[in-house]
């Protein structure tokens, strides 16, 4: 029982990490209709910024807020300066711009702060004694903190898209930027805000995640997380916020339980098996669990 709960908790914690970044992906997708392949490295870069501020003796919370701001500005600037000029001409090229950003941001972080692993302090209590016992398993403060952040973020984003004018405009731009512009939506501003928002969410994901990540904060930290997060976003349905959360948690728990209980899979096939299960589920729901079906009418 204890072992099971431990695995479950570990899976849920990893899962919320994926879910956080997946939320950032979904926000970009819902606001702009593109998948941001540089999301992970963007989060990595902002986390380095936060870490760097803590080394200058800034309090963790200040560093995090600063990272969020940098994330927003960076996201918005990338959209305006790098993505938009290319997107107008060719969708495929956007992919490569994102990959260029991927390499560029990663190397830039390496250039500025070195490739050695850093230790990002957690904003939540994470001492060895800061836990509560759940059926004998330990649930630590920082894990709880990530869960809480995830729930709050999900709520906020849902409100944003459902209830606010800017959310409506984001959905309009994602559906068809040209028609949205014809309706008077300031598409440029919306695109920038969308990317900025996802940059900020990514930054939040980064600073909350790295203290928990096995490799701490290193140049490769975000890669696996990004892969899992994109799988989570797709699995949930690329345009569904709750989908991203359910997707992230599912992948986290699947990974933990599969490698724990299915001995053939062991750890060697951990990612493979989790992904294969997701592919199998996509067979049944080709637009993800909660994704809306896009009917092409003819």
């Amino acid at each position, binding site marked *: 029982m204890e072992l099971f709960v431990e695995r479950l908790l570990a899976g849920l914690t990893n899962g919320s990490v994926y879910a956080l970044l997946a939320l950032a992906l979904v926000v970009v997708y819902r606001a702009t209709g593109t*998948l941001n392949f540089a999301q992970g490295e963007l989060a990595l870069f902002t986390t380095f910024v936060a870490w760097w501020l803590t080394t200058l003796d800034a309090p963790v919370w200040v560093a995090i807020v600063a990272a969020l701001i940098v994330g927003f500005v960076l996201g918005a600037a990338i959209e305006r300066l*790098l993505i938009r*000029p*290319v997107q107008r*001409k*060719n969708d*495929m*090229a*956007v*992919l*490569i*711009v994102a*990959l*260029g*950003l*991927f*390499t*560029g*941001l*990663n*190397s*830039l972080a*390496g*250039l500025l702060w070195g*490739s050695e692993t850093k230790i990002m302090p957690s904003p939540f209590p994470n001492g060895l004694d800061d836990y509560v016992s759940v059926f004998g398993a330990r649930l630590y403060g920082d894990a709880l903190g990530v869960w809480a952040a995830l729930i709050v973020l999900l709520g906020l984003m849902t409100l944003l898209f459902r209830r606010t004018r800017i959310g409506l405009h984001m959905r309009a731009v994602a559906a068809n930027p040209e028609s949205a512009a014809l309706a008077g939506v300031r598409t440029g501003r919306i695109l920038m805000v969308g990317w900025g928002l996802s940059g900020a969410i990514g930054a939040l994901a980064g600073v909350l995640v790295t203290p928990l990540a096995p490799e701490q904060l290193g140049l490769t930290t975000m890669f696996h997380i990004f*892969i899992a997060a*994109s*799988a989570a976003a*797709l*699995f949930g349905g*690329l345009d569904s916020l709750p989908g991203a959360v359910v997707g992230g948690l599912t992948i986290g728990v699947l990974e933990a339980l599969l490698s724990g209980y299915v001995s053939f899979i062991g750890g*060697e*096939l*951990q*990612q*493979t098996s989790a*992904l*294969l299960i*997701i*592919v199998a589920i*996509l*067979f049944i729901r*080709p*637009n*993800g669990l909660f994704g809306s079906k896009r009917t*092409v009418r*003819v």
Partner: protein
Amino acid sequence: MTVLAPAARPQAAAPRTKYVIVENSPVHHAIRAACIAVAALGVLWASQLAPFRVGQFTTVFIMAIAIIGLNLVTGYTGLLSIGHSAFFGLGAYTTGVLIVKLEFAPLATIPIAMALTFVLGLLVGLPSLRIHGLYLALVTLAVAVAFPEIVRKLESLTGGAAGMVVRSRYLAPPEWTGLVRAQRGIWMFWLSAFVLVLVMILSRSLIRSRFGLMMRTVRDHEIAAAANGVGIARTKILVFGISGAITGLAGALFTMYIGALSPDGSFTLLKAIELVTGLVLGGVATQLGPLIGALAVVFLPYYTASFTTGPLSGVLFGAVLIALCFLMPEGIAGRLGLLIRRVVTVVPKDHPAPPR
């Protein structure tokens, strides 16, 4: 009021291009021959370079073959694949295992490597019946992630995480070439160049065939394609198979060239991304794009790394990628094609009234 000119359809606007060339006319043949001659001279020139350069060009040819495979699926059929590293890897490992474990002659492994990657392609293509777009890309991603993990798991066959070394004496040129073992580099150069030309011709005729037309209709509009008699499922699955086999062929050559395989080295998701990068830089759905793209992915990082050292080279590489996309979002071959088409129109021979 003045009587208006008859409001018929407007005349075909002024001649769209400067020159019109009739397909397969002497002029057309001459231009084509000239292009082939230039290409042949280029290859000859490359073969005379220092051995490590020859090796670099061999990598380019091999990458070009792999990207041609990807181009069929992603470029011409519109199915984004970020899993082609798995085909490349399966081809490479098939050749490696057959040589090391069963003492196959390297060339003899090629058909088997292609057959296996063809089957893997069919399997990967299967989900495309129901799964579309980015969701399908996720399926291919799963394959890319799975491949190194499976190679590691099958340790007794593949050498697991430690990898597998195919010693150069297994990879000596076949006797009939008259080349000796030390000339392995130049042998692989010509072999790869030869295979590349074959694959280019093959891909060109495939695209121009009825099946190629079907591929492109599936890309542009699935519903309309089906309504016109294109079996969507069949087309997609078969394309994945063919594409897999071609990329697998590249993998087989890769083993013969490099002689050292490791699951974490050349067959990860990063390789798949490299292939996609090459394709887009070169020009999606163009015949020359894969070759140009291969040149780019081999030489760009090499020169950015020799330009500066350390992380700065990565920053530079990223910047160059972005800059290229800014300058030529259609890819290099795509842009060239546009420019050429602005000047020249190639008209099929049976065109009833060739536009001037």
